[in-house]
């Protein structure tokens, strides 16, 4: 062994030559032994450190995307279904709101607040009163008052017919249908009055007051039913799905109401 060099005071301490480290004994390397684990698809091995507990390490085999998809299919499917349902729910709510808005405008405002007070309610009040005061069959000559009453009743009926023209704001077909019913009511009332006059003046067969009352009530009922049907149709349209189907339903209803009104005349 070569002699160590002399060290003077203040001089740096020389480092230990490399061959001095190599003289220590090398540590025992860790052992890695491949161990076949039965019934396992993973590649596993046992890691045996020089000191410590042997550890079993398993690595999963490499999988393709198909394998990953199969494993995740249920959650992916549920996610897609939820997404589709969300989109459908959004569209449904949006169209429902639009239809509710339309119904509110047409039905709640125009029909109930504008047209009804100006025409439907006065018509109902007037015709109910007219029917209750329908003069009976009498052989007595008509008085001037009676003739004047008849004339004023007809004037009032005609003004109601004009007022019903406001229904065109809501629906042209409904306005047409209601106009038909008002005309039929007026015609029936006039024919009764004429038949009374003929009975009185010329001895013609007396008309049947109960029959006329029944007919007038039926006409009044048909008119109200037409309006009710229109309101019901509004709510039906708002409940059906799909804007195009709702529009086509609306158009079909309009067409059928117009044809029914025409065939009724």
């Amino acid at each position, binding site marked *: 062994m070569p002699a160590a060099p002399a060290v003077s005071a203040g001089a740096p301490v020389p480092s230990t030559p490399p061959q001095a480290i190599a003289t220590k004994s090398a540590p025992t390397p860790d052992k890695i032994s491949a161990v076949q684990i039965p019934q396992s698809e993973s590649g596993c091995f046992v890691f045996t450190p020089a000191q410590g507990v042997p550890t079993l390490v398993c690595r999963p085999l490499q999988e393709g995307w198909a394998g990953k998809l199969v494993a995740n299919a249920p959650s992916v499917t549920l996610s897609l279904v939820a997404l589709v349902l969300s989109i459908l729910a959004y569209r449904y709510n949006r169209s429902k709101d639009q239809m509710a808005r339309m119904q509110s405008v047409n039905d709640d405002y125009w029909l109930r607040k504008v047209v009804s007070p100006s025409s439907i309610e006065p018509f109902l009040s007037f015709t109910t009163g007219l029917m209750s005061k329908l003069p009976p069959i009498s052989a007595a000559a008509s008085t001037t008052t009676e003739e004047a009453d008849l004339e004023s009743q*007809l004037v009032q009926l*005609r003004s109601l*017919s*004009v007022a019903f*023209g*406001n229904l*065109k*704001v809501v629906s042209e077909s409904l306005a047409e249908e209601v*106009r*038909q019913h008002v*005309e*039929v009511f*007026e*015609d029936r009332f*006039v*024919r009764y009055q*004429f038949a009374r*006059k003929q009975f009185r003046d010329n001895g013609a067969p007396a008309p049947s007051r109960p029959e006329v009352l029944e007919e007038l009530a039926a006409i009044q009922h048909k008119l109200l039913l037409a309006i009710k049907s229109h309101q019901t149709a509004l709510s039906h349209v708002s409940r059906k799905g799909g804007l195009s189907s709702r529009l086509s339903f609306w158009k079909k209803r309009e067409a059928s109401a117009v044809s029914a009104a025409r065939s009724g*005349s």
Partner: protein
Amino acid sequence: MNSVTIDLGKYNGPVYTGRSRGEHIREFLALDRVDSEHGEVNVLIPDDTYTVTSSFFLGLFGPSVVKAGSKDAFFERFHFKAPPYLRPEMEGYVARALLQRNLFV
């Protein structure tokens, strides 16, 4: 220019009601053609007429009123010889036809 005379006495008076009845007479008399040719029409309403309702009048003359466009223009072509008590009623019918034509168009 042809003129046409309509005598309502020939059509089961003295009560004239029903829009379909008015439309039927209009079709029978071919008033649409008369309108297109701007012909004059003389309308005779018997003195013993009880009434002419709006439905009958508008069924018979409604399209002519709308085509005329105004009350004056209508009565320029359609000359009515009718009981005096019917005149105001007919003027009211004409006004109604024009009003309903103009409402919300």
